[in-house]
């Protein structure tokens, strides 16, 4: 892999497949994706709803819901394979080595438990601390995530916090045991626009301080532009383009990535109105032959309808599109 520094990646995913068994056969939710995240690096995973971003996140933490299951490939955390761990071993990895942040802070916290109780139970599950020490650590964590007066607020119930404050508590919970990796699944989607930037900045700052790697799943290109080091663009269960954030935002290559970028208002300099990608993503049950994007692609040509393009290196990035393989052949 050319885009990865020499030191060992925190997370390494190779040829991952996730299937959902149904009455009508297996649906391929994730169809052979590979990526790495280096220590302290932020990888943004973007795509439309149903592209497989969240399923990828769930696969990494081992929480895919039945009937979904990993049907191939491997996931390594700091070199150790984790996709085939037993339930109990995987539980020890979750929360301890991989923290998770969910989309909706309003529903992520148990309404019947004080936030302090939820923090200390997480801390004491993973770290050998006394109740008193765990509480002290919980207060520190709340202070770190910017909760004012944490000594008092620790005994509040979730409903006594605003959405943004609750998401801060969720971040504190994700970081409670100093994980190597945080998987953040649409962490700002459910929040007010005014709060979104604060939360993103907070995640970025805390992870940078701790050297924690982040897998940031989102459909918001603005968030990616601000936060990510690397970007993976997903479409219909596959990564269509992956590379450094500046490259992909500045000069997207895959027609789908290009469509996504032109949908960001601030980044489109010479267009008066937003460009829409025509059509919608195909259902997993009825994926077209060849490139899954070809029915919506404005640069589609004959081979796209029959042969599926594989990711090929193009400088610092990898692109899965016949457009470029053909260019090469022609030149």
């Amino acid at each position, binding site marked *: 892999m050319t885009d990865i520094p020499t030191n060992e990646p925190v997370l390494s995913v190779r040829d991952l497949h996730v299937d959902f068994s149904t009455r009508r056969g297996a649906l391929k939710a994730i169809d052979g994706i590979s990526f790495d995240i280096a220590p302290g690096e932020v990888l943004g995973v973007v795509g439309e*709803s*149903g592209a497989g971003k969240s399923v990828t996140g769930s696969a990494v933490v081992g929480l895919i819901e039945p009937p979904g299951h990993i049907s191939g490939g491997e996931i390594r955390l700091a070199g150790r394979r984790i996709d085939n761990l037993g339930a109990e071993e995987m539980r020890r990895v979750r929360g301890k080595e991989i923290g998770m942040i969910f989309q909706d802070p309003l529903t992520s916290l148990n309404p019947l438990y004080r936030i302090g109780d939820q923090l200390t139970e997480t801390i004491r599950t993973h770290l050998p601390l006394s109740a008193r020490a765990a509480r002290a650590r919980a207060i520190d964590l709340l202070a770190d995530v910017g909760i004012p007066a944490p000594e008092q607020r620790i005994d509040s119930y979730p409903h006594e916090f605003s959405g943004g404050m609750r998401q801060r508590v969720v971040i504190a919970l994700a970081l409670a045991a100093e994980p190597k990796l945080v998987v953040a699944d649409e962490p700002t989607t459910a929040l007010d626009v005014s709060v979104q930037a604060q939360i993103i900045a907070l995640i970025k700052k805390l992870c940078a301080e701790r050297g924690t790697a982040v897998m940031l799943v989102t459909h918001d290109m603005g968030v990616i532009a601000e936060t990510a080091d690397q970007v993976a663009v997903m479409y219909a269960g596959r990564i269509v383009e992956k590379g450094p954030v500046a490259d992909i935002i500045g000069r997207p290559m895959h027609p789908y990535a290009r469509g996504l970028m032109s949908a960001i208002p601030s980044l489109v300099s010479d267009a008066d109105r937003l460009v829409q990608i025509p059509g919608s*993503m195909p259902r997993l049950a009825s994926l077209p032959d060849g490139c899954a994007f070809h029915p919506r692609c404005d640069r589609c040509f004959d081979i796209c309808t029959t042969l599926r393009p594989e990711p090929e290196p193009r400088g610092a990035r990898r692109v899965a599109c016949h457009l470029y393989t053909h260019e090469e052949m022609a030149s």
Partner: protein
Amino acid sequence: MTPDTPSQNTTKAGFMARLRDHDMTASFLSSKVTVGAAIVTVLLMAGALLAPLLVASDPFDPTTVFIMDSHLPPFWIDGADPRFVLGTDDQGRDLLAAILYGLRVSLSISILGVLFATILGVGLGLVAGYVGGTVDAFIMRVADVQLTFPVILVALLIDGMVHGALKGVGQEDTAFGVLVFSITLSFWVKYARVVRGSTLVERNKDYVHAARLVGLPSFIIMLRHVLPNVLGPVLVILTINFGLAIIAEATLSFLGVGLPPTEPSLGTLIRIGQQFLFSGEWWIVLFPGLTLAALVLAVNLLGDWLRDALNPKLR
């Protein structure tokens, strides 16, 4: 959240469309239990309907019943009489015939009661939702208070009140009507709540305002939109209520405030048969009991399936 969620479509699609949906038929056929329950229900209903054709004589016609035939056991036990497959009771009545005729009575009362309750509940729900204000508040308060009390208690109270009011009139003449009346008044609440909720939603939609503007009777137009929406839930409630009504009728008759021994339902037969349990004549109570249990279980299984099939979220 997801832009391609088809929730709008599923809620708007009428009940008939969902009935045609092949998933529902598939779920029906894939469940052997449901098919079995449907067969049992149909068989019992057919037995009740065709009772006069299936058995030789009316077991409650004193001219055809002979006391010498009393206390005969079912056919596989010594001393049985081949004329009486399931044996006879203390009066010498053929138990099979008594059960079929009893089933007839039980089913008639439950079906009529639930049907009237459905009409009453749907009607009151529509009125409460459409008229609103005091009428709505009154209907729903009554529903709330009634819902606090178990159905069987409400039915008993109504039964007791009617008997108090009609003192002097024989139980034989009024029992059937009183039972239907009790069931109707006990089972309307759930319909009213569901229909009212749906009516409230429809009432504020544009087409209702538009209809009112052009002077059309908006109530009638709205009705056409409300009914298809609530048909599914109403059908589920109807099935569940049918099972409950059968139990309610049987219980009232068992308690001795329902049908008299001269015109027995399944509950009455069990009440009569219970007395012979200690003398070893178990069949007099067992066969009516089994019939009742099979009927209620089959109806409940159908209700369960219907509820799951119409509510994909629960699957």
